[in-house]
């Protein structure tokens, strides 16, 4: 009888102490959350990401997910690719720097050639490269702020275009 009572009392004590430890755990976590840097980080990342979950789980289309992630970086790149005629897709395309598009009133963060190729399978080159003179097409913006692809540009005109476009730098 005594042994049984001891076991019950012991279990009771252990259980109560574990409940107190549970309280301690919760207090410690609240304590961590009260530290400003942790609170801000947690709100701006983990909680914010969780907030997007419901929307994201209903938008599982691959293209949609790419657009959600990359935004204009991806969308404009795909638009450019769609404007390149099928017979010119194998040719080298000169793409000016982001600064050029900004000057023309367009926000377009130009991907580096390998990323452009990854998105579109089209080979591009930046004006600062010596290879730029080999390009046969060029992406430009017209007066209506529309992106226009010029194909089969004569080499003399391409030379002057490359030189003119070199004033814009390509930050990574």
């Amino acid at each position, binding site marked *: 009888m005594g042994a049984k009572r001891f076991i019950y009392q*012991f279990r009771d*004590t*252990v259980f109560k*102490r*574990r*409940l107190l*430890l*549970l309280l*301690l*755990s*919760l207090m*410690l*976590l609240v304590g*961590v959350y009260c*530290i400003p*840097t*942790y609170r801000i*980080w*947690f709100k701006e*990342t*983990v909680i914010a*990401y*969780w907030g997007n*979950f419901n929307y*994201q789980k209903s938008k599982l289309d*691959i293209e949609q*997910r*790419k657009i*959600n*992630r*990359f935004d204009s970086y991806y969308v404009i790149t795909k638009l450019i690719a769609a404007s390149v005629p099928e017979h010119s897709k194998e040719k080298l395309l000169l793409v000016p720097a982001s600064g050029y598009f900004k000057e023309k009133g367009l926000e377009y963060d130009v*991907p*580096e*050639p*390998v*990323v452009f*190729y*990854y998105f579109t399978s089209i*080979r*591009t*080159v*930046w004006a600062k*490269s010596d*290879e730029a003179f080999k390009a046969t097409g060029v992406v430009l913006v017209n007066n209506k702020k529309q992106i226009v692809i010029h194909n089969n540009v004569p080499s003399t005109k391409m030379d002057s275009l490359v030189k003119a476009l070199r004033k814009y730098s*390509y930050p*990574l």
Partner: protein
Amino acid sequence: MSLIMLILLCLLHLITGLGLMGLLKISLRPGMNISLAIITGIGVFSIVPFLMELLFIPLTALNTWLGLFVSTALCNIKYKQSFLLIRSTIGSLSFKPKIYEIPFLLLIGFMLFVSAWRCFYFPPTPRDLLSGAEAIAEFAVREKSMLNSVFTVNMESTNNQFKPPYITSLQIIYKYAGFEFGQVWLILLVGSFVLFLYQVLLKKLHRIIAGLLLVFFLAIPEMYAYTFMALFDYSNAVFFFLSLYFLQLYFEDKQQKQLIFSGIMMAMATYTRSETLILAGLILPLFLWQWFKVKQGWALLLRNGLLFIIPSMVIYYLSISLFINHYLPVSYNIGELINKDIFHIHGLLLKVKDMTNELVFGKEGKAYYNWFIYLFLFLLSMELLVYRKMNKPACYWFYCIVAVYVGLALSSHILPLMDITHSIKRGLFKIFPLMLLFAQNNRLLIGWSNRLKNWENPIREVG
């Protein structure tokens, strides 16, 4: 469908990893075995498409899957041993969380879920991945070779195509498994690593302290970001930590299998980031330290040192010297990247100073790593001021932390392309699990843990 494929791949990693562990007779606690096996399995699989490329085997879906099954079979060649390990691991697996650790487990689980979802949902994002491994992997799936049309594109803006093919290989496997964006292998790697770390911490610390430390570890902002953005550094930190963990076990138990496994893990770390070879070199003095203590003879010292470093050198040769110089269709002169003024020690000291000022005590430091480094410095100062002497494991982990810190500065000094604001910032991921293990061996925390354990269970006090 995606979930089923992920579970299947997870099982394949598990069987492969347990097989390799069985071959080397590596066995830990059941939960640790499972997490370690998944990480090891990911490591083994990351080499398969690369080896196939070295052997000029086309990377078709069929060949890739065959390659994976062959590697699983080879790792389980001593199938009786593997079966025993699997049976003992699964047989003794139990999960009985204490009521007070549930808040920590829920929070950690929530953070991991959010990370896993982002990893699955979004396409690969880091510029280093898009302009390198991811582009190569995407076109490898289309053209059945890692040496594909990506190399015909103008690549003056990047050198990411010259990184070791660790991520490329995993991306190829996961793309063939039906994951458009690949990269979900990172979910398995991160989840297994966190599980492994938690169990390591529980060896010496009370569950509340272990849980709290792990929350601090997961809440390192920069590191958390790379739990869902695939890049080399998180994997590098995982394999590097495992190597040092098994090296410590070797120094304690003197079982050669642990040294061999440590060497393999360091090779994996070198495969993920080739500069790790420099850090592996800085770990070698630990063998000398052991030798002074035990006085085993030069031959043994040399043999142990070679067992540790040779696998890393082999993988470095295969993935960098051989693959880049003799397989890639474009040339890359690594010699040109090396600092011409390498013996200018002042430059190295400046790197250490810049690292400390910018990444540890600078404004950005807290944004990158929150208070984690300060937590370590607090525990270190307690150890030095209150106890005035570190215990052996704490000493070991402290040496490793210093070696990584100095080693990163040295890497940046030797290869100036490794800048502080990008490469070193992420390279420091390697130091945080080591700091956790330092905390695990910190006398202050061990003392608190023992008091909590005794108070929780009064029988212990009597016993």
